[in-house]
């Protein structure tokens, strides 16, 4: 088991946000965290790599508890793609280089440059390398931030709403890219996401959050309309359309 999360509790100013969260994830899998607005999806992600400190519980990656490590050691194991990227005047190359931060001792080495260059090529953003990140489109920025997370050389990628500001083409492209990375590089990914159809199309497992707790955990083939109805409070049907399962509100 690559990632094992056990009994995580978290509250903001004594207001409970997550309680008793337990799930696990295998190598090569994508898990989508689903739930209504405010269900605690982003909070759960931030608890996994200690941006927020859970009150209780453990997060094991290959048997090591991240909650007992320094922030820097956590960052070597988990790459993080935040929901928003503020405007800075860093170039794309500089932005991706920052992913090496947890590994830099005093200065960058030839291997750091090689790795970053390689990631930039693989993600097809080489033509943007010297442009300022602030000049790019939403989809391009998202790829840069994914590249930065990959430069962390992590075992697990955490992505917070990676498709929320993108058009349909870019949504599919970015999620396809994440699927491809997970399949080819021996990683796992945890993705907080709103869009059920995108989630079903790309993920292997689902965690449904409701009222601070895990309401259900499911694989793609065990998914039922009933689960979705209970979590989102709407009637839906799961239909097959040209080989893809889609959620249709009814």
């Amino acid at each position, binding site marked *: 088991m690559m990632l094992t999360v056990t009994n995580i509790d978290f509250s903001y100013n004594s207001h409970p946000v997550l309680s008793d969260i337990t799930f696990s994830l295998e190598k090569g899998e994508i898990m989508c965290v689903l739930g209504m607005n405010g269900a605690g999806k982003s909070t759960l992600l931030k608890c996994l790599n200690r941006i927020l400190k859970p009150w209780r519980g453990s997060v094991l990656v290959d048997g090591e508890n991240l909650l007992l490590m320094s922030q820097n*050691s956590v960052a070597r194991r988990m790459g993080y793609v935040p929901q928003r990227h503020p405007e*800075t005047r860093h*170039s794309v190359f*500089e932005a991706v280089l920052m992913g090496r931060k947890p590994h830099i001792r005093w*200065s960058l080495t030839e291997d750091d440059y090689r790795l970053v*260059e390689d990631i930039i090529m693989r993600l097809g953003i080489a033509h943007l390398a*010297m442009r300022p990140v602030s000049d790019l489109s939403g989809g391009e920025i998202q790829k840069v931030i994914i590249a930065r997370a990959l430069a962390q050389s992590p075992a697990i990628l955490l992505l917070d709403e990676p498709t929320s500001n993108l058009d349909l083409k870019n949504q599919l492209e970015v999620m396809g890219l994440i699927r491809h990375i997970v399949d080819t590089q021996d990683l796992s990914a945890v993705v907080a996401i709103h869009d059920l159809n995108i989630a079903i199309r790309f993920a292997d497992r689902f965690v449904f959050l409701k009222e601070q707790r895990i309401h259900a955990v499911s694989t793609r083939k065990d998914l039922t309309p009933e689960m979705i109805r209970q979590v989102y409070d709407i009637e839906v049907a799961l239909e097959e359309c040209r080989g893809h399962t889609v959620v249709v509100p009814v």
Partner: protein
Amino acid sequence: MNIFLKIIAGNRDGKFARTGAITSAYLESLNRKLLLLALLLGATLLVAVFAVARGAYEIPIGCIFRALLGDADATAGVVIVNIRMPRVIAAILCGWGLSLSGLSIQSLLKNPLGSPSTLGISQGAAFGAAAAIVVFGAEMFSVTAFAFGGAMAATAIILILSGLKRLSAEAVILAGVALSSLFVSATILIQYLATETQLAMVVFWTFGDVARSSWREIGLMAGAVILASLYLMFIRWDLNVLASGEEAAKGLGVNVGRIRVAGMVMAALISAMATAFHGVIAFIGLIAPHMARRFVGDDHCLLIPFSSVLGALILLTADTIGRIIIGSGALPVGVITSFLGAPMFLYLLVRGYR
């Protein structure tokens, strides 16, 4: 320059054997910017030599070098070693220190309008120093210690407001305005209570001026500024990452709380020393880092050295202009930096300060 490239880019020659075109393009652009840095350093040196040579007592350039070797005629030697050199070196250190202090504040609080003078830190230091002058006489240690106390009080309030209460950048600046006027009023109150001699000392001292520097003060300031520069270079990647947001920074392994407190204490210490030794010199900490950003963008590997050199160059030039061109040699440099800095501050506000 090669050594510098080795330090900031991890490479001495500007290229690696096994990397491709993208890395080369990046290292080339670093190289170009380092050339610019060398030019600015050269310019600072030229202004420094000019500033030592010119003034009420003219000194030929050759004589300066002889004086440095202890081999000049008596008058020139005294003017150089006791009057001009301390002033020039103090201006360089003070500009360097205040600029780094401003850069740290801007980067750590993610507030482009931040600087020791816009957040009330310098005014806090000035209040502490004025209190020390009136209560303990003008003994250097107590003045510096009290200045640091005042600066730390302002810094602590700013840290609490911007960190814990999560005020916006503008709101933090407003808090700085409130703090500044509180400290200025308290300083006036102290002046009101002071004897005539103390009053003259406090008032004269409140003008930011680099003319009254002893070699001992210069030594202390140099030590602090060099340590601050090393610390900032050590956390340069943390600062780069912090520009992409606090959560992104934590996700990349930055201990945001620790560098924020350590960096702000360092910024407060430098501005307290600058203020204790030279009075309030406003806006250098705002102008110099912003000019540096114009040259090199947001990369702290370059921003730190550029801000240092630009701060030194601007303050030295302003002081030299005040001394030689405008007049009698007594115009405090703080007046000139305020005239430069206030319009810049307004410009940043209007433009949306990025």
